[in-house]
């Protein structure tokens, strides 16, 4: 354990800076690495090349550009709610990171109901999206907001149900102890790589990844923001800083749900062969977790730029008739095996 004693305000300051770093670093990395570069390579083009070596400073140029733009509120919009909505969306992502452990001591809040809390916090962002769609006083925005709400409600269920398998197997809701359960586990007595729950909970893992793609409204589940029919849905009327906030919120949410998935299924901040109680894990842990976040987010973007969009009815049907029954079966199976062994 760490031998430093910090006053309450120092801890609070550290936590605030830490959460901001934990949100903005992955979000920035995702935009620069995947949205600018990886996708360009997949489409046989180079992507941004001018700002910095190989376009590596493009991100800063983009942020500078958005900050300079005028912040427009439509004449007939509900101005106060219109201005509030982006902060709600970004704020909920900050709250999700609160429960994610980055090392044996590097944790913002070691909540007993950690995973439950993370899912609850992420479910609140729908309200921000609905407000944005309604307050814009624009038909397309309202349609986008409604589609988003319908989709997020439908896919929240498989997301939560897929987590249940892990919770049953680990015997705790606490994310820190889910990580140590995977680090201490063994596969039929072979304990060298621990037991990442992605192996035993492979069904839950796949369901979680699909539901996560839908929760993040990434293609093939991007009807709420479909730019070719709804002109990016609930974000149509936003400009300047507020649009940037939605943008940060979108990519930070990819990072946050990837972090949750990495913690639940891939062992979190632990890497096989390391001592999970050692002090150095507080420094190595965040780096390992960031690597796993980038790995999972790459899958998200890979799928996003590979598949075409679902139709609205196909999407609802897929959630209620395929994903939810499968995840319920997975829970029953896990329960039986948990009792049997």
């Amino acid at each position: 354990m760490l031998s430093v004693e910090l006053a309450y305000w120092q801890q609070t300051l550290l936590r605030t800076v830490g959460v901001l770093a934990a949100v903005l670093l992955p979000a920035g990395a995702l935009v620069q690495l995947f949205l600018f570069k990886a996708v360009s390579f997949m489409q046989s083009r180079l992507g941004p090349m001018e700002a910095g070596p190989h376009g590596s400073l493009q991100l800063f140029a983009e942020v500078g550009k958005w900050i300079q733009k005028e912040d427009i509120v439509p004449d007939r919009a509900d101005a106060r709610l219109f201005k509030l909505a982006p902060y709600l969306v970004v704020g909920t992502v900050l709250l999700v990171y609160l429960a994610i452990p980055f090392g044996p001591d590097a944790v913002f809040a070691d909540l007993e109901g950690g995973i439950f809390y993370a899912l609850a916090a992420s479910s609140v962002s729908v309200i921000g999206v609905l407000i944005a769609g309604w307050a814009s006083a624009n038909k397309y925005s309202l349609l986008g907001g409604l589609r988003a709400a319908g989709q997020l409600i439908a896919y929240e269920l498989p997301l939560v149900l897929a987590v249940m398998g892990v919770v049953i197997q680990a015997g705790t809701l606490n994310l820190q102890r889910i990580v140590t359960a995977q680090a201490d586990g063994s596969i039929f007595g072979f304990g060298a790589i621990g037991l990442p729950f992605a192996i035993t909970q492979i069904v839950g893992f796949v369901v979680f990844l699909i539901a996560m793609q839908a929760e993040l409204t990434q293609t093939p589940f991007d009807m709420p923001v479909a730019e070719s029919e709804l002109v990016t849905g609930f974000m149509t009327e936003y400009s300047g800083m507020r649009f940037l906030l939605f943008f940060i919120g979108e990519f930070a949410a990819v990072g946050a749900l990837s972090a949750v998935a990495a913690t639940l299924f891939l062992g979190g901040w632990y890497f096989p062969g390391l001592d999970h109680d050692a002090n150095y894990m507080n420094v190595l842990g965040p780096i390992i977790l960031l690597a796993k976040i980038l790995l999972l987010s790459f899958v998200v973007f890979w799928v996003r730029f590979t598949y075409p969009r679902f139709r609205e009815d196909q999407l609802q049907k897929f959630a209620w008739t395929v994903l939810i029954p499968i995840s319920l079966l997975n829970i029953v199976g896990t329960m039986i095996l948990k009792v049997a062994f």
Partner: protein
Amino acid sequence: MTLLATVNSDVPFNVAQNVGFGVIAVLMVTGALRVVTTNNVVHAALWLVLVLAGAAAQFILLAAEFVAITQVLVYIGAIVVLFLFGVMLTRAPIRGEAGLTRSNWFGGALVGVLLLGLLSFTLLDTFGGDRLPADTRLTLRPAAVSQAEGTEPTAGSNVGAVSDSIFSRYLIPFEAVSVLLTAALIGAIVLARKE
């Protein structure tokens, strides 16, 4: 670092907790009044979010972490979202509409006051001078710290206690409520379906 509710639980009055309670309570009451007085349905739903979030905050002040999270997940994340969804899908003019207040609103107000009186009496009668037991503390300390001290990492946090009581002592009421909810769900489908 422990939650304020449990520091010195034999001291009858915790100033910081009471100040927190007061501030949140004022926000909740203001929000609740706005829910019924505003003439915009969407605004009413959003004021309701403030009231429900305030209730969750009060649960956290009482060190009932699990109940607080459930409050947010179920009421804000699901029920209010469904409200907003329904309202926006049907009719939600952006400037609000006149005549939302019913002529018989005082009947509702009367029921509300009666319910308040009944609940206050029941709570005071049942719990009166009870204090939070000292071990229901919500720790925000990393697990490793508690291990070094030889205590349970999240000693007395109430997730386990809640599930223990639901699935042993209150099992039959719990199952009855589940059946009731299923029946309500089926009833809603039957009503909504046109033959």
